[in-house]
């Protein structure tokens, strides 16, 4: 990080696109009534606490890693996503990226 924080351009709100995606997904699910925010926060803080035992979290990438892990676990527990459902879809996305010519939009087939 720059040492000249005050004089630099504003920091981006999300440093990686997937940080924004997982954030929006969680807010959307909450607003759609899938879970209450305090329940989410309690689970998320438990994940952060567990991860923080292994290393000091810097609040960047590791923060959103913990966020994603919490969401994946929560969705399986409350039944929106089946335990073995994610793997194949993730694999399909990976194949889509690897077989889509550079510059073309990547879509699931």
């Amino acid at each position: 990080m720059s040492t000249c924080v005050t004089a630099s351009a504003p920091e981006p709100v999300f440093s990686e696109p997937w940080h924004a995606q997982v954030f929006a997904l969680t807010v959307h699910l909450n607003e759609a009534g899938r879970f209450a925010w305090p329940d989410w926060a309690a689970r998320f803080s438990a994940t952060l606490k567990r991860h923080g035992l292994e290393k000091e979290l810097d609040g960047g990438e590791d923060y959103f890693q913990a966020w994603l892990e919490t969401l994946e676990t929560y969705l399986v527990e409350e039944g929106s996503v089946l335990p073995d459902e994610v793997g194949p879809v993730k694999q399909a996305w990976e194949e889509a990226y690897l077989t889509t010519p550079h510059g073309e939009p990547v879509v699931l087939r």
Partner: protein
Amino acid sequence: MPHDHSDHPHALLPPDPALRVKALETILTRKGLIDPATLDEIIDIYQNKIGPQNGARVVAKAWSDPAFKARLLADATAVVADLGYFGRQGEHMVVVENTPEQHNMVVCTLCSCYPWPLLGIPPGWYKSDAYRARAVREPRKVLADFGVTLSDESSVRVWDSTAEVRYLILPMRPAGTEGLSEEELAELVTRDSMIGTGLPKVPS
């Protein structure tokens, strides 16, 4: 191996967590539990429309209008909702006022609860273990790291946010700002001054 050379034959493979998020989105969209357009809308709101400028507007108004300030300190949730700033997660907002005797700062020791409608997404340091642990244990040292030195007469109070209650600090109005408009005052209000880890800018 990162492959970022432009002559690569296929699209750049996103990192593992990005693919996991895409998988969740696909599954939930297929089941009709989410709407991808809503996801884009939420990202746009937090990336472009909500940020510390909202909180700065509230602070500048409180500095300019004593009746507004009194209402804000009594029931911030209702007052900021009147300005169009809603807590989308149903949280309550509480505004605490800095005085010459007491400086206030905000932390979330639990995770990263933060007054999103007024300040947007928190900066990385707010979410770090270092800040979350040290703000409570040694607030004066943390403030010193941020370049804030308080007088000996001033005490420090640390407010621990929760999923239900989010705090915003009302900093002291800087000297020499008599006669400034609300818009000019809002320019002086920094994000960190509303978290309590900074002070407002002084007019040049």
